[in-house]
Each structure stands twice: as C-alpha cells, then as structure tokens.
C-alpha cells in the first residue's frame, strides 16, 4: 500500500513539474490579488497593517480555490483515474497521494511566498513567522477539503465556479482561526491555541476527507 502511495505521489509531482508554468499561476494570482488591496483601498501603512492578516489569508484561500479545478481533471479525461480506482490499491491512499501532491505544489509554495506579501502589506515583522506557520498548517486542510469538491465536480464540464460555491462555506473555520492567529501575533498575544485548533482541523481532515474524496471520485467516474 505504501508503495502505491509513493508511486502515485512521485507520478503526480513529476507531471506537475513538466508543466511548470501551470504551477506558477496560483502563486502569481496570490501576489496580484494581494496587490489589489492597497490599490483599491489605501496604501497607508497603518491601515494595511490592520487588514494584512485577513487579506493574506483570504488571498491564500482564493489561490487554493483556483488550483482545485485541475486536481483530478487531466487524469479523469484520459481515463487514468478510472484505472487507478479499479486497481486493487486502496482508494484512500490514492486520494491522500493526490492531495499531498497538490499541497506540495500549491499550499507549500504559497506559505513560502507569504513573507514577501507580508512585507508588501506592512504586516509587523513579529507576525510573519506565525503567518507562515499558520499557512503551513492550514493549507493542507484547504487542499483536503477542496479535493472533495474537486472530486465531486470532476465529471462536469463547467466545474470551476461551482467548486468555489461548494467549498467556501467549508473553508470558513480555517480562515477564522488562521487569520486570528496572525492577528494575535501582530498584537504580541499567544497563538498556540489557534495553531492547535488549526492542527486539530488538519488531523480531522486527514482522517475523514480521503474517504469522501474516494467516494466522490467513484461517483464521478461511474458516469
């Protein structure tokens, strides 16, 4: 079972790196949307600093949303997905492998890129560490929950906006605790509780989401 997991993970990462341009898109989106806020509202440092925790987290959420559509699409279209589901390998591991590959190519780079945006939005330096940490814990949860929505809609032609409609209410708890962790860090208050809750959400998603993802994939493939 573990062999299948690593094999699938390696395969997805290899495929992702073959289209390096596609990997960059969510990251560029992240940067550009964050840049919209000073342009649309006000470039004043104190004003932006207050908004920064929420804005950064919302931008991360939106970038995650953007990348969900293609999570299972190409495998679905060429029939690989069906073969993978029919194989004797557990679909739980398949779902986990694909979601981790997705996170490694979207959430992780996002978390690494975040300090740059934090500087653009005048987030106080003491909060940048917590920002990265909260994103590192939160984005895998976003990938897992998002993968459920992506699996549900993979067979549909116009899945894109529908995925966002389905998944945004489910993202709200992660957003609330992630953003407030960073908010607390700017004020110098303790953040361990927030990060612990983010961690708990991650663990819950890791345990439950792959079942839902696998069931959704089977449903979509049986069309």
């Amino acid at each position, binding site marked *: 079972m573990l062999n299948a997991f690593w094999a699938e993970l390696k395969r997805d990462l290899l495929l992702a790196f073959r289209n390096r341009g596609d990997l960059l898109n969510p990251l560029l989106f992240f940067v550009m949307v964050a840049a919209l806020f000073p342009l649309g509202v006000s470039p004043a440092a104190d004003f932006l600093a207050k908004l920064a925790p929420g804005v950064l987290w919302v931008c991360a959420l939106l970038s995650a949303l953007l990348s969900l559509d293609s999570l299972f699409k190409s495998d679905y279209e060429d029939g690989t997905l069906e073969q993978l589901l029919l194989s004797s390998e557990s679909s739980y591991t398949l779902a986990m492998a694909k979601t981790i590959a997705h996170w490694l190519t979207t959430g992780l780079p996002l978390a690494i890129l975040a300090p740059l945006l934090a500087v653009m939005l005048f987030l106080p330096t003491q909060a940048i560490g917590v920002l990265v940490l909260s994103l590192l814990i939160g984005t895998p949860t976003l990938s897992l929950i998002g993968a459920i929505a992506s699996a*549900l809609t993979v067979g549909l032609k116009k899945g894109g906006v529908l995925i966002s409609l389905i998944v945004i209410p489910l993202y709200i708890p992660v957003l609330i605790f992630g953003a407030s962790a960073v908010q607390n860090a700017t004020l110098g208050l303790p953040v361990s509780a927030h990060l612990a809750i983010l961690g708990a959400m991650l663990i819950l998603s890791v345990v439950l989401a792959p079942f839902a993802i696998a069931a959704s994939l089977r449903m979509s493939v049986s069309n």
Partner: protein
Amino acid sequence: MAKKQIMPLWFYQLASPKYCYQITSKLLPLFAGAALVLLSVGIVWGLLFAPQDYQQGNSFRIIYIHVPSAILAQSIYITMALSGAIGIIWKMKVADMVAYACAPIGASMAFIALMTGAIWGKPTWGSWWVWDARLTSMLILLFLYFGVMALYSAMENNANAARATAILSLVGLVNIPIIKYSVDWWNTLHQPATFTLTKKPAMPVEMWLPLLVMLIGFYCFFATAMMLRLRNEILRREKRAGWVKKMITKT
C-alpha cells in the same frame, strides 16, 4: 437463508415509491391541517396576545417566526444529509427523492431566519445587518444549502446527482458544529457580550408557549411541503410505472 434485516419492516416498505405515494396521500391532509391550525393559532397568539418585551417592544414579536425558522433550517439540513446517507447505504431511490425535496424548503427556512433576523436588528441595534454569531452561522448554512442545490442542478444523471449531493451534505453536516464553534468564537473577539437576539431562559410562559406552538406548526409545515415535493418527484420519475397509469386514467 434470508439475510437478517436490521431495520423494521416499515423501513423497507417505504423504499417503494408506490407505497410512499399512497401513504403520503393519507398523511398529507393530516399534516396540512395541523400546520394550518397551529400556525394560525401561533401567529394570532404571538401578534395579539403575547406580552411585548420590556426592552425591545413590539418588534420582539418577530421571534415567533425567527426562532422556529432557524431551528427548522438546521433540522432540515440534518434530514437532508441523513436521507442522502440512507439513499447511498440502502440504495433507496425514495430516500434520494426525500433529500432532493428537502433542499429548497431548508433554504427557504434559512432565508426567512436571516431576513427576519436582519429586520429585527434594525429597531433593536440600529442597522439592517449585524455580524452577530447566530446570523453569520445562518448565512453560512444558507451557503451550504446553495452549494447542494447548485451541485444537484449541475449534474444530469439523477443517480449520480443524488450520490454527489448526499456526500456533500454529509461533509457539510460534519462541518456544521465546527463552523458554529468557529463563528461563535470569532464573534466573541469582535463583539463584547451584547444581549442576544433571543433571550432564552428569562422568557415567561406567556412568551414561550406561542413560540412552542409556532415551532410545532413549522415542523408540520415542513412535513406538508416535503411530502408535496416528494409526491411530485415520485410522479415525475415513475411516470412509466403501471400503478401511475392506473391512477391517472382512473381519475
């Protein structure tokens, strides 16, 4: 040897669309009548006879619609998710149809709860919208309903649509306590404890008795509306069946 059946007989009998149609023919007038009586009594009682709140005045009467619709919005979501689960586990078409019937009714309830909550907020707090924990949770519940309805309408195959929405509603069901907890917590950060829209323990009998009547009336209303939608869906899907033809040509 026959497989041991876990559920009682009536559960498996309900799997037959024809049986459901016949049973709902008998139940519908009962629940419709009950809903009509209870809602009329409740509304008249709440509007005319119940005392007004000493702080909020007569706008307090909106509670007689706001609270029951909020409770129903949540109950209906649970019903929708559970019937979806039953549909997947026992492969019952009728359960899928029940889930499909529930969705718009639940969304209407969530909408009513939101609207009455917002309207109530104006004389109470001075603005048409407040990011109160309850209202925000109800808004998110409405979004969850929209997601389920949008997913259903995007899928052409009925069986797949039922499975997909069942999975989505179950995922939503697991998330609802998490969402509530998060929003409650978020609200305490940004709004120091103000009095809530509905003061529960301190309500005297003259105030909560009509509320109870309205709540039961709302449940009967839900049963009525759901059975109507269910019958409609059964007719649509089973139109080729012999019993449908017999029933239509007989009348």
